């Protein structure tokens, strides 16, 4: 299964209302019941088989990127968590973003708006590691590999986690 930016822009990648209801029901996690899909089905007025085939379809269309265990990095010893922000020239951000998003130790890679004068950075990526030095080395390698070591960046390590859980939606619908 390959999910990529191209698929994300396809019409096929729009979820129906029933599918959105299923995604919402999954927000708090798959029930820890021997028949978890049946539990979801009974909440939604669907059959177990319909839940399973909807999930297959959502995954196949790239709307659900993955179904499975969502680990808490910190609890597993990955305490060095860096958000690295870069000021990439607009005409290069597409190419650099795509290449950065493919690097194996990069766990998120987003383009976001600049906010002058406080915030000049338009490309964000996340790197997790057990030690700060490892993460710093990885960031240096990343800059070297992508040829952006002369581009201004900042590395923001997280020091305290106040809250982390999956998103919750109340009758959330794409607007």
């Amino acid at each position, binding site marked *: 299964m390959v999910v990529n930016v191209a698929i994300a822009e396809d019409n096929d990648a729009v979820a129906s209302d029933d599918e959105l209801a299923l995604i919402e029901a999954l927000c708090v996690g798959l029930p820890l019941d021997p028949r978890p899909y049946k539990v979801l089905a009974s909440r939604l007025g669907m059959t177990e088989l319909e839940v399973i085939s909807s999930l297959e379809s959502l995954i196949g269309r790239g709307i659900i990127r993955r179904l499975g265990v969502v680990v808490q990095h910190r609890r597993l010893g990955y305490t060095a968590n860096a958000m690295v922000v870069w000021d990439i020239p607009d005409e290069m951000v597409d190419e650099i973003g*795509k290449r950065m998003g493919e690097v194996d130790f*990069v766990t998120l890679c987003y383009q976001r708006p600049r906010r002058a004068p406080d915030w000049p950075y338009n490309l964000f990526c996340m790197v997790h590691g057990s030690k700060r030095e490892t993460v710093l080395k990885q960031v240096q390698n990343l800059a070297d590999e992508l040829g952006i070591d002369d581009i201004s960046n900042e590395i923001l390590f997280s020091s305290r986690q106040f809250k982390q859980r999956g998103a919750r939606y109340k009758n959330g619908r794409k607007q």
Partner: protein
Amino acid sequence: MFETDKKLLNDYQRDFPLVPRPYAEIGKSLGISEGEVIEDFTRYIENKTISRIGAVVKPGTIGVSTLAAMKVPQEKLIEIAKIVSSFDEVNHNYEREHSFNLWFVITAPNQTRLNDVLAEIENKTGTTPMSLPMERDFHLDLGFKLKW
């Protein structure tokens, strides 16, 4: 950590079995019972090793979200972080080492509610959040490879 724990945590981050009894199927491949698999996952959730078994959804599929940052005086950080975390719409909230030292993600059903939450946070904390909504997503989330 036991071998079974490592496998349960690393190998089932994606392609979770889509069969009527997924925990039984996982147990079968690891040589343990369905009940033990459910017990183990329950324990990981209780001790916060995992947040859930869930679906990671393409951004923008459902609701709207933004990453927001604030500059907060150090002595007020805990108090203000608590206010921010108290919103149901805030699902991540971190201190980071920077003059923008509080970073959080807001997810809401629509843009109106998202703007309201930003305004309420500003009212309650006296600090204006800088909102940085995602414009493009370049990453393909395949889960996080754990190295033991």
